[in-house]
């Protein structure tokens, strides 16, 4: 049961990832965004399989929810036409593919040697919370300040010039 779920979610994630990158069906960026959402949900499913329940929730809540909504807003805001079919430069394509395939080969090669991990009981959300607020309290505060800065930045950037 566990294995089948894994394969399901993994296939879903990989397929939607590919579709985000190369969408043969339609040129519309919204479809791309939707497939990205799908990938994120598949990922949160994988997190559940890995007993990271809190993160699964966060993944769906923050990523799939907030970030993707933001994407959609921006796409709508810029009401992109059909992004016309621009021939992807042959040279760039080959170079890109070469780089990525090289990277992939490297990663998979590295995986060969990576030691197979042993099943280990992993703490639940309570343990994560305790850890977060004891050892990592300081980074937690920093992150909150970061978010504040981000918000101020965004407001500044999207300020309409005073007409």
């Amino acid at each position, binding site marked *: 049961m566990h294995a089948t779920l894994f394969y399901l979610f993994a296939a879903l994630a990989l397929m939607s990832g590919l579709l985000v990158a190369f969408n043969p069906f339609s040129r519309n960026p919204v479809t791309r965004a939707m497939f990205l959402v799908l990938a994120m949900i598949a990922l949160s499913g994988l997190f559940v399989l890995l007993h990271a329940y809190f993160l699964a929730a966060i993944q769906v809540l923050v990523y799939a929810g907030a970030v993707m909504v933001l994407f959609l807003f921006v796409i709508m805001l810029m009401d992109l036409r059909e992004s016309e079919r621009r021939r992807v430069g042959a040279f*760039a394509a080959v170079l890109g593919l070469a*780089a*990525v395939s090289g990277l992939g080969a*490297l990663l998979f090669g590295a995986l060969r040697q990576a030691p197979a991990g042993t099943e280990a009981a992993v703490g639940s959300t309570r343990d994560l919370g305790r850890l977060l607020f004891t050892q990592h309290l300081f980074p937690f505060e920093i992150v909150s300040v970061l978010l504040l800065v981000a918000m101020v930045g965004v407001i500044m950037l999207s300020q309409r010039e005073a007409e």
Partner: protein
Amino acid sequence: MPESLLITLPWLVLLAPLAAAVAILLRGRMSSASSAALSIGGVLLSFIGSVGLWVACRGKGVPEHPLIWLQAGDALAAGSLTLSFGFKLDDLSLWMLLVVTGVASLIHIYSWGYMREDRAIPRYFAGLSLFTFSMLGIVMAGNLVQLFIFWELVGVSSYLLIGHWFERPRAADAAKKALIINRVGDLGFLIGILMVWSITGTVGLGALAEKLAVNPELLGTSATLAGLLIFCGCVGKSAQFPLHVWLPDAMEGPTPVSALIHAATMVAAGVYLLCRVFFLFTPDALHVISWVGGGTALLAALIALQQDDLKRVLAYSTLSQLGFMVMAVGLGAPSAAMFHLSTHAFFKALLFLAAGSVIRALHHQQDIWKMGGLRSRMPVTFWCFLIGTLALGGLPPLGGFFSKDEILAHALTHNRPLFAVGVCVALLSALYMFRVVLVVFGGASRDVAAGRAKESPAIMWVPMLILAALSAGSGALVAVDHPFGVFPSEIHPPRLASLWAMLCGTLALLLGAALAWRFYRGAAVDPLPLQWGVLARTMRQRFYFDELYLWLNRWSHELLSHMSDFAERWLIAGAGVRGASGLALFAGSALRLLQSGNLQTYALWMAAGLLLLLYLFL
């Protein structure tokens, strides 16, 4: 002679001319008369001093008190160098002192009359005094390095004197040529000294003589080489065969300078050096020396035959007589060489002074074919010139006869071919000297200036008369036994040989005079080129040595300096420096292309970088 005087007198003799020169230089605005007085005073002082020394110390020599001049390295360690400054005054140097200071004084007095209307008299007399100081330094030097120091100083002061009229390009070039060629000789001399020092550990003449006396094989295989290298110094200074081209050009200087430097003293320094280091020479070194001397004598006599400039004839005659003396030393007869050196100093100085008075009378006209008929107009000069010529030719009672005959006798006993060369040179010297006498003094005057020539003032012909008396009387030296000190391994030739040599000498003189009489009696133009054609022309062109040396110089020094200059400008400065800066510029521009502004390429480079890193670390 009290001890303290014996120590201070040499210093007085040496430093008097230097003091005069320094006083003239420092004084700046000095009048010609006072500068002449100072200079003449200086040289007379040292003459009196050297007479005193000669009288007091002939035979006994003066004790040496060397002062440390330069001391490098630990005094006790073997490799250290101690250069000292001391005098070696034995019979040889005392006699040489007499000759040098005597002739120098006469010439100083003569040049006060000769240079009367020159613009830079103080500078002239300062140079003359400096020269006398350096010459005395050579004569009194106690060790090889001190001798080398004064050797160079003599070269430099002759450079200053030859270039006295430096506005004239010919004089300036002749001075430069003289000093550079002298220095070529000095190069060999210095390397010889270094070699002797590294083997024996000392440069002192006395110490060297003792060490060689104790262990003749001390210098071992390099003895001949060291001897010949030191001989190079003599070749350079006494203008022997390879390095003789500078002496005739040195005639650009004023005539008294030529008389002092290029007849009596400086050129004789080379022969004096040979006698001074005679104990160093090995038999085959002496053999080479004798042949170099003989060759120079013959070559110079041939060239002198066809020269039209009065002073150049005398210059080549000096060259040939010097070749004679070097040959004498080569034959193992340094005392004969010294004897000939002394007589030659007197009569050659006389000839040059007489030539000077002729030239001055004809307003600096030096071409003999523009003179003539001066016998009646300048009787004193004529008689002095004639006495000098006869002394040179070797007429029996006069000095030249005895000294030349002794050399010929030595040649007869040791080296027959050289004897033939000697006789031939005697004949040629008689020929070219009588040629000059007949052309300049005999016949009708060929030029208006010659027509109005008047006799020189007393201040000029009094020294000439004294010199004439000296050159006539110097033959008496043969009676004095070992006037120049005793030299090891010098055997006196048998009676028969000297008789036979005397006979051949006078025969050559008479034959030469007759030939000259036949060719040049009342001749309007030089008959020789017509009869001897090509030979005469090559003799006139001085066997093309000057052109040869110019070509040689162009293919050695000039070529090297061209190459290094080219390489310097293009390789080191060009490729090296500009190359490096060019490289930096090129690298900068190449990297600029990388910033294309395209987001995609940046991402690509980042990915490539990541790839590389991963590859390295995984």
